[in-house]
């Protein structure tokens, strides 16, 4: 078997174009898919529970009224809004995967906004199962919050600016229903100037009044600047986020796991299928299984070689990404290796099964492509975006083909996703056995 392995390596070394294609193509696809995932999908739904009593939704800020309900329609421009009857219901909708996030408005939000002294907090709960959509909803909620914040800020600003203007220029203020005249800093300074002018040059009061005058000038100048300062002041509403269940992996990290899994998939399946079919195409198969190697030994050789080659390429891809583009925790390398090893072995087993069934290199490569694309695609379809039989079909595909399990294992290994590491690895080992058994059956009519 060792000689067979060396022979295959020699053949690969003498097919540089094929090898280059085999390596470049999956990596390109992987990176494309990774970057495509960064773009958000269509309207996801979110649940909103508004604890604010209807009669309190309009509140006064410094004399002008704000209606909180005005901001909800803006939200539903980017997401489908489902209104929940209670906080519990909103959270349950998230847990069931019916909505991707729940937004909960606390009952005292109006009072807090009106008082302007305490920052009211809106609660947003995400479904973490699908990082792509989570990212999208996160950004939508944040964007709408920013809109609301901006609108409220403007209100506060107008009110504050009125006070500042009055402080500077004077005017009338309504206090307890009575109009009270306010002098203002400019007028105060003018009065001071005229008083100072009447004093003798060396009067001791003059020094003290000059100091007051300088303060007034400084205050007038700085109050002018404070308009801009106010505009840049932050958000009146803070958002507190919680993620319920599922994955917490942010998108970029997840995309790396996807890229690694995709390149592993294509490279391994194509290589294993091609190498096995080549034995038949060269008519060497019948010669080999006449006691030179057992059929299982031959399969083991192909699986081992394809898995090893693609593991090395994908590891190089990850190290390259980690060194130059993204932050990866190199201390977790043993976990990467475990995920890559079991994933590539399962893919290689799938590959030899395809190679055994197709029996020709071209047919095997075509079959490998035709099957790999939808397997990867279906495994990447976000949960909650399809329902009924389609969801069942996807679940079956994910269970029968090694892609989803590999992706999960890689996500845990690379990103410390809060999921089981052992479960996908066991799944992959079981699939390896299954596909080797299928390949062994296919070899019965291989010669």
């Amino acid at each position, binding site marked *: 078997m060792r*000689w067979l392995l060396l*022979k295959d390596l*020699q*053949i690969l070394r003498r097919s540089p174009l094929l090898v280059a294609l085999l390596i470049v193509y999956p990596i390109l696809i992987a990176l494309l898919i990774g970057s495509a995932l960064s773009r958000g999908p269509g309207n996801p739904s979110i649940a909103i529970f508004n604890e604010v009593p209807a009669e309190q939704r309009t509140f006064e800020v410094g004399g002008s009224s704000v209606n909180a309900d005005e901001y909800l329609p803006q939200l539903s421009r980017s997401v489908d809004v489902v209104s929940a009857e209670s906080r519990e219901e909103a959270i349950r909708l998230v847990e069931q995967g019916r909505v991707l996030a729940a937004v909960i408005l606390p009952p005292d939000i109006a009072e807090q906004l009106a008082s302007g002294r305490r920052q009211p907090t809106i609660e947003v709960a995400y479904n973490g199962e699908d990082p792509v959509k989570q990212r999208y909803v996160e950004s939508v909620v944040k964007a709408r919050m920013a809109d609301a914040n901006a609108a409220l800020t403007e209100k506060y600003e107008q009110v504050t600016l009125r006070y500042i203007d009055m402080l500077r220029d004077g005017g009338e203020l309504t206090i307890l229903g009575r109009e009270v005249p306010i002098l203002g800093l400019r007028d105060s300074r003018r009065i001071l100037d005229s008083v100072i002018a009447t004093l003798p040059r060396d009067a001791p009061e003059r020094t003290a009044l000059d100091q007051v005058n300088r303060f007034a000038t400084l205050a007038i100048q700085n109050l002018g600047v404070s308009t801009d300062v106010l505009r840049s002041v932050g958000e009146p509403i803070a958002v507190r986020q919680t993620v319920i269940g599922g994955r917490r992996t942010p998108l970029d990290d997840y995309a790396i796991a996807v890229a690694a899994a995709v390149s592993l998939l294509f490279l391994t399946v194509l290589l294993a299928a091609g190498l096995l079919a080549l034995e038949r195409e060269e*008519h060497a198969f019948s010669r080999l299984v006449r*006691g030179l190697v057992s059929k299982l030994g031959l399969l083991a050789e192909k699986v081992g070689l394809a898995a090893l080659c693609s593991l090395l390429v994908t590891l190089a891809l990850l190290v390259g990404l980690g060194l130059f583009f993204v932050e990866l925790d190199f201390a977790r390398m043993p976990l990467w290796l475990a995920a890559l090893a079991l994933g590539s072995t399962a893919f290689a087993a799938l590959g030899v099964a395809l190679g055994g069934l197709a029996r020709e290199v071209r047919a095997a490569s075509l079959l490998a492509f035709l099957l790999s694309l939808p397997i990867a695609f279906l495994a990447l379809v976000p949960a909650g975006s399809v329902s009924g039989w389609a969801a069942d079909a996807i679940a079956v595909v994910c269970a029968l083909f090694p892609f989803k399990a590999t992706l999960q294992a890689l996500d845990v290994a690379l990103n410390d996703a809060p999921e089981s590491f052992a479960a996908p690895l066991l799944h992959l080992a079981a699939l390896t056995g299954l596909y080797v058994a299928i390949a062994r059956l296919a070899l019965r009519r291989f*010669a």
Partner: protein
Amino acid sequence: MPNAGNNVAARGDRDAAAPPGRDAVPALAVAGLAKRYGERVALRDVSFEAGAGELVALTGPNGAGKTTLLSILAGIQPPDAGTVSRPPGEIGWVPQQPAVYSKLSVAENLRLFARLERVRDVDAAVRGMLEQTGLADRADDEVGRLSGGNRQRVNIAVGLLAAPPVLLLDEPSSSLDPRQRERLWEFIAALAARGTTVVYSTHNVQEAERHADRVLVLADGELLFCGTPAELEAAVDGEAAARGARDFETSFVRFLHERGH
């Protein structure tokens, strides 16, 4: 039964012995072989024996079951019934299409298969085979770049690496030009003279007549005839003469036709 592990000694004995006779222990004995693919019967109760150094031609029309018979002898597929006296490990196999790696050189192919066959002195076996087949000057050429005839030589060389007492060849001459074909028969005759039992298939009944000690005629999976070329000629001519057939080939076709094939 001759022992494969004791090959060289056995061969020496055979060289010293008189031309193989029917009473000697056969180098290869086949009894009651049967094979069917679904409904189609590919082989029906085929039995024959071949002595050491005997040259056996297997002939018959397309689909007669020649390849099926040879591949069962080679151990590539199991028969549905019947026995073969030798295990596949003691039988050399040269398939119709060259079963060698076209990306490897001639020497690399030979070395690979010698190692897989667990030949004791790999380098000596490879060198010997290169010389015997006249491929020494092409040793470092990729097999994919060789002519069909040379590729067939590599194919035969691989079948002979383990110095098997019995060699099977499936239509070895079909892809060769007349000159290459002559060289092939010389090579095979020399092999038989050194004691190797050779069983080959061919479409060409005249070739079978000329280059065989014994001819087997197979049609639709049945063994119609088993005897020396002279006996075959007698049987064919005996029937055909009355009908005025002009040459042996035509007579042979008639011979098959008479038996319902």
